[in-house]
């Protein structure tokens, strides 16, 4: 028997899949010169379409409902995450356009990007363990290929392979955990798991707990939370920079959003356990991410460790297990994603200027040469560090508030200490850009005059900048949206 299908709920995925299909066709049928342009425009339109339909779903779904025989959940929480994914995807298209791979695999690249976005939109609406795994693999496989798409660059291939191996391991752990949970409770649907746990008194069931632990570990892999972060620096460094930007913003968003959804919906009885686990992961990520970032000289590695530490901050919000925590998580993701995309966009700009990997020293004088990008980068660093007037500050403030509210004040202290450490490396980037020290040998751009202007890339940087500032000054509407979204979770 075919269940009724809520096609409207699937529109973001369908739009993006359609865009991916057109890109693939364009890769074969369109004239060689225009392939990349057509594919880029289609993908951009696809992400715009996903954004618009995401907004429509948000507006028309005041209360969450299960759709498609309970396999998926249509609610504002998922729609909110779809909006972030769609926004991130759009900016990624803009900053991919100037990249050199345009010439080779333009069509395929954009098709994968759109398909990846579709997978993420699918994943955040998951309501049972099968959809969860399907969605996770859907977008992960796209990302494995995207990381390795620079076929002529060893680093890119290495990144793809590493991500494939470690990512598959993570997916395997998650799948194993899901199987154990299913085995213990006999339910696939998240709310069914909770009901079965309550009804059958499985609160202390060893199989269920093992399953829960493995699922958390699986999410940890995807969200690159320590100690499951090993792949992050290498993959972030090796992958093409636009892909890294997309991963740092969108993958983290969907992994953490879904993690909170699963934990809250399926395991309310175990909340003491998983909040403790989330808090432990948060501390580990904050400690490891920040300490390791201190010694990095390559920008992409540094930002990779910084993203690990931000997984820690986001996990504090998860550990709060409250409405306020959900609100904090969703709100934090907005400025974080924007700053992350923007920062990698600036890195991409510098890489294209220099023709090699950007290092901290390689930024010397960048701020004065390219003031718009320099000021934007400085702002992103301040946002990462959580200083006003950026959304990073208010995000951190909400996360700390959630921790305090949940009676976990000690997590605030951990967060504060981590922030102190992180300031050193965030400010070292600002220092390199604006305060050239006489000892540093200045790396000049490759010969051939000033780098070509890339209005799309600058546009995406400015858009990120607008979000980072906008989420601070125009905080109230965003918080309202995040509040409505978080309220659809059964805390």
């Amino acid at each position, binding site marked *: 028997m075919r269940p009724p299908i809520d096609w409207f709920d699937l529109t973001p995925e369908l739009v993006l899949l359609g865009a991916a299909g057109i890109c693939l066709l364009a890769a074969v049928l369109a004239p060689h010169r225009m392939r990349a342009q057509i594919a880029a425009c289609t993908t951009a339109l696809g992400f715009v379409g996903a954004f618009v339909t995401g907004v429509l779903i948000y507006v028309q779904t005041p209360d969450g409902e299960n759709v498609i025989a309970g396999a998926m959940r249509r609610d504002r929480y998922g729609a909110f995450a779809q909006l972030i994914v769609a926004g991130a995807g759009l900016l990624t298209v803009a900053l991919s356009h100037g990249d050199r791979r345009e010439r080779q695999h333009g069509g395929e690249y954009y098709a994968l990007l759109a398909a990846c976005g579709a997978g993420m939109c699918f994943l955040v609406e998951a309501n049972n363990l099968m959809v969860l795994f399907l969605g996770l693999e859907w977008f992960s496989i796209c990302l494995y290929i995207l990381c390795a798409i620079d076929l002529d660059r060893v680093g890119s291939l290495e990144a793809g392979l590493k991500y494939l191996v470690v990512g598959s391991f993570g997916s395997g752990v998650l799948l194993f955990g899901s199987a154990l949970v299913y085995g213990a409770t006999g339910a696939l649907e998240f709310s069914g798991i909770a009901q079965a746990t309550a009804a059958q008194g499985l609160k202390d069931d060893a199989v269920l707990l093992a399953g829960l632990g493995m699922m958390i570990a699986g999410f940890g892999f995807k969200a690159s939370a320590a100690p499951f972060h090993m792949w992050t620096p290498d993959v972030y460094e090796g992958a093409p920079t636009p892909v890294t930007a997309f991963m740092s913003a969108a993958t983290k968003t969907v992994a953490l959003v879904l993690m909170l959804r699963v934990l809250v919906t399926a395991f309310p009885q175990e909340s003491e356990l998983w909040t403790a686990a989330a808090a432990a992961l948060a501390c580990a990520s904050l400690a490891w991410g920040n300490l390791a970032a201190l010694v990095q000289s390559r920008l992409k590695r540094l930002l990779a460790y910084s993203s690990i530490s931000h997984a820690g901050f986001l996990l504090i919000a998860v550990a709060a297990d409250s409405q306020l925590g959900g609100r904090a998580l969703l709100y934090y993701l907005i400025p974080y994603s924007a700053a992350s995309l923007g920062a990698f966009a600036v890195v991409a700009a510098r890489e294209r200027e220099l023709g090699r990997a950007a290092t901290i020293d390689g930024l010397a004088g960048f701020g004065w040469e390219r003031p718009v990008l320099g000021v934007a980068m400085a702002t992103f660093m301040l946002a990462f560090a959580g200083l006003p007037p950026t959304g990073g500050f208010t995000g951190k403030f909400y996360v700390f*508030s959630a921790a305090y509210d949940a009676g976990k004040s000690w997590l605030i202290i951990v967060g504060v200490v981590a922030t102190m450490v992180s300031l050193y490396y965030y400010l070292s980037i600002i220092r390199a850009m604006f*305060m050239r020290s006489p000892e540093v040998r200045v790396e000049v751009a490759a010969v051939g005059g000033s780098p070509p202007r890339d209005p799309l890339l600058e546009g995406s940087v400015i858009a990120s900048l607008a979000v980072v500032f906008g989420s601070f000054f125009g905080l109230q509407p965003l918080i309202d949206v995040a509040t409505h979204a978080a309220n659809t979770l059964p805390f």
Partner: protein
Amino acid sequence: MNDWVVTVLILLPMAGALAVWLLPWTRLGAGGFALLVALAEVGIWIQAAARFDFDGGLQFQQQTPWFPDLGVSWHVGFYGFSLWLTGLTVVVMAATIAYGFWAGRERARAYFGLMLMLTGAIVGVFASQDVLLFYVFWEAMMIPLYVLIGVWGGPGRLHATLKFVIYTLAGSLLMLAAVVAFGLSQGTFDLVDSGTSGSTIILLGFLAGFAVKAPLFPFHGWLPDAYRESPPEVAAVLSGVVSKAATYGFLRIALPKFPGPVGDLRVPILVLAAAGLVYGSLLAFRAPDVRGVIAYSSLAQLGLITFGVFANNDLGLDGSVLQMVNHGLLSASLFLLAGMVERRTTTGEFSRLGGMARGRPLLATVLMATGIIALAVPGSTAFAGEFLILAGVFQQGWAWGVIGAIAIVLAAMYMLRMISAVLHRSPGQAVSERALDLRPAELGAVVPLVLILVGLSAWPALISDRSFPHGAAKQSINTGLQASPSHSITQERTAAEAGP
């Protein structure tokens, strides 16, 4: 309830900063525009001060919700002492921007934009009536300062900024934790609506932020480097105005919101203040250069002001507000003068200076006048402030008074040492015959500050009697600076008069 003047005072310089950054100014244009904005600030402040009712409580309030789910709002307004500190800010900022304009800073648009942004942030700190807003402005001060020192500072600037940032942010992040805890435990972040808290831990978080910013001994590690490596006008702002944000925080947050814990911690804080006072004075006396003397004297003076704030009586509180303004003006003038001396001689080291008075009467007069007021000769406004503070702290215990008096003697010693090392004795190696006297533009920047000091010397009560309603400082603080205590007093009075 809805008066725009404070909001304008905060947002005007910020808008000016954006205009400087975004429009294609020439160097002269950017500097001139920034100076114009700074002078407009002074004008607006004078207009506000003229309308201010010194017997009322919080005035010129404006409140707009920012994020209501946690009870945070844009709530600004002035108390008497905030008004004076804001006045200090706008005057000193105008003088320093004028000096920066005259000195011709490189990358003028970036520089003047940052100075204006800093102005807005400092005024915001003094005007916020919401603890989160206070914190936002507090951090917002840090970023322009970091860049101003790091880009336009001296040769050791990178090291100095690193130290400065790590110290201040370590303090202020602890303060953020305290802000979160305070606001959520009170149910509102509004400083007027919230009640008092009995938590020593939360108070310690706030004190960490304040003690580093002021700085109080032993949190002053960043101070000598930052004050030496900054451009002189930035050092003037840093020691003259930014340090007052910390003592303002004592007055506005620590005392009224944490009456119990402050009582417990009073003696340790007074001990730290006393240590800073004596230690700073001794170091100032031994410092080998002009800026070292001013820097350590700042440490000492901030200790003295903290004495007054925590003396727990009217005399101490009134004196501390007066002394905050005094020290702000003095320290700013001295740093600007130090900059002028360094500009002529390329050095601030006493061993290579000397004899600058000969042939340079204006420099000698201005430096002498400022130095004399700074060493608190009887009759000067600094004397009035220090006397009030000492009288206040004497009531806490005679020993505090003795320590304060010793430090004031030391102040006379280090100030006179500095004056004589720069102006008198035989001309130093670095002092060229051709080094000019002060130029009119320099006089324009520094003389107004000195004139205000002279004016205050004639009438210190302008500030000391008008910082708290009816001069009832302690009562005002004890009632949590809630809607003016004057109300109850006047109501009682009218009731008594209308009585039988």
